[in-house]
């Protein structure tokens, strides 16, 4: 029960903690799931973006194995074309030893491998910020040097960004579903509140309160509820993510699996959790407002 003073500022709706507690708990669980979804999607799309970025600044020209005189000529010609192309920062011949070590995982360290004809690779680094027409470049290289192929890792990057995009949409979908479920819960609770406090609502209405005034009484309550649930959910999600980060970090160290990225949402990921209580409060407040206004619109 609200403390009533002569100030006249007591809430016009009685505050009944016990009836709002189950809804707060339920909303907190939803906010927890939303926060995890948000952080995970940020984490994964950042990782995909990192890989894609690493690949997008580079390309490779592959030259078919040939006799050493011919291949030297091919290498020379290719390097000339590449160095004359604006937007290319560097073009470097990958040494035979390096090429071999790149192929090692596939070919193994069999004896006699040394005698196999090896394709030669030229690594290209583009100037950051400039756009090079890689299609035209590829055609020029292939025309000048038979069997030369420009590989821009395009297929890889498309796969990666497609994956990241699909993931982002999936995450948005899950977040939208959670938001819809939360709004549904708030509609339900607001209608129950209108019913419980029907007498009060009627008195306010007939004393001349505007619908927006009555709605603001409900709105304020649901804003606080959404905020509380959002903070609870976000804090528990942050704890979960932090524990996950430490656990995956320790696992990577223990197993020496350095290629496994530690599952870290990063500072941005943690900061984005602030959005959860903000959105929860906004959704709860607006839903309550719309629900009350719709109900009051049916009053005489």
């Amino acid at each position: 029960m609200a403390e009533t003073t002569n100030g006249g500022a007591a809430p016009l709706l009685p505050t009944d903690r016990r009836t709002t507690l189950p809804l707060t708990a339920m909303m907190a669980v939803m906010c927890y799931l939303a926060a995890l979804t948000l952080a995970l999607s940020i984490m994964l799309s950042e990782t995909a973006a990192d890989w894609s970025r690493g690949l997008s600044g580079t390309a490779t020209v592959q030259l078919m194995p040939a006799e050493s005189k011919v291949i030297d000529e091919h290498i020379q010609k290719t390097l000339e074309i590449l160095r004359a192309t604006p937007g290319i920062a560097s073009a470097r011949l990958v040494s035979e030893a390096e090429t071999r070590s790149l192929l090692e995982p596939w070919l193994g360290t069999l004896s006699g491998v040394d005698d196999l004809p090896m394709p030669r690779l030229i690594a290209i680094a583009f100037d950051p910020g400039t756009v090079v027409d890689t299609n035209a470049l590829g055609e020029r290289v292939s025309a000048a040097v038979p069997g030369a192929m420009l590989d821009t890792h395009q297929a890889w990057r498309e796969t990666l960004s497609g994956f990241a995009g699909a993931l982002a949409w999936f995450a948005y979908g899950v977040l939208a579903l959670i938001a819809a479920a939360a709004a549904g819960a708030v509609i339900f609770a607001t209608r129950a509140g209108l019913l419980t406090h029907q007498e009060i609502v009627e008195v306010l209405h007939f004393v001349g309160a505007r619908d927006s005034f009555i709605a603001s009484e409900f709105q304020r309550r649901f804003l606080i509820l959404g905020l509380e649930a959002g903070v609870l959910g976000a804090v528990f999600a942050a704890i979960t993510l932090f524990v996950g980060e430490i656990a995956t970090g320790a696992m990577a160290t223990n197993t020496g699996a350095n290629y496994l990225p530690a599952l870290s949402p990063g500072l941005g990921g943690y900061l984005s959790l602030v959005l959860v209580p903000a959105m929860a409060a906004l959704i709860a407040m607006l839903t309550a407002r719309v629900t009350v206004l719709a109900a009051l619109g049916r009053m005489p």
Partner: protein
Amino acid sequence: MIRFENVGMRYGSGPEILRDVTFMINPGSFHFVTGASGAGKSTLLKLMFLAERPSRGLISLFGEDIATTPYENLPQVRRRIGVVYQDFRLLDHLSVYENVALPLRIAGRKPNDYRDDVEELLIWVGLGDRLKAKPPTLSGGEKQRVAIARAVVAKPDLLLADEPTGNVDPEMGLRLMRLFSQLNHFGTSVVIATHDRALVDRFEATELRLDQGQLRVIAGKGEAGGTKIKPRKEHKA
């Protein structure tokens, strides 16, 4: 100030409770609405404070046809009308003071602005020492007076009271009637619904008598139109 013209009223598809009701209420007047229980007195009041809409006919409040008044203007109209409900409709979680201050708070006035007025009014109705009490702890007569105080605190142009003496003993009933009479002297039009014949006979006021859904206007024996109330000498039965 209030005009009913050929007003008909039915609930849903039920029978017509009011038929061809026509009357006028002038500023500063005093009226009784009488009739047997179930005659439609409460229904008539509900039409006057916009809790129900008529099935047909014209109702004009303060010079405006309510059928064409925009929805957003209705709160302003309601603020000019004070209502004493038959069942009081006090907010149990608010104190006596807060219940009475409610119309002022809703009209957007500042607490510091109206505190003295509200306290003065509560003293006037004899509740000066119950400001912080909650309605469930009050007697019937006390609740009645809180309800009346809430209805009049914003100095409405029109006061509607539904059986305001129904729940109290005759002596308290008389005290409350004097209160209404005083308000009327300050310029508020008062309309009281009652089935208490004796009460009506005590006062010279225009009577709106409901019978079989029809309304008859019976002028009071006082001044023309019976606008002012004059308590008669008490008869000895």
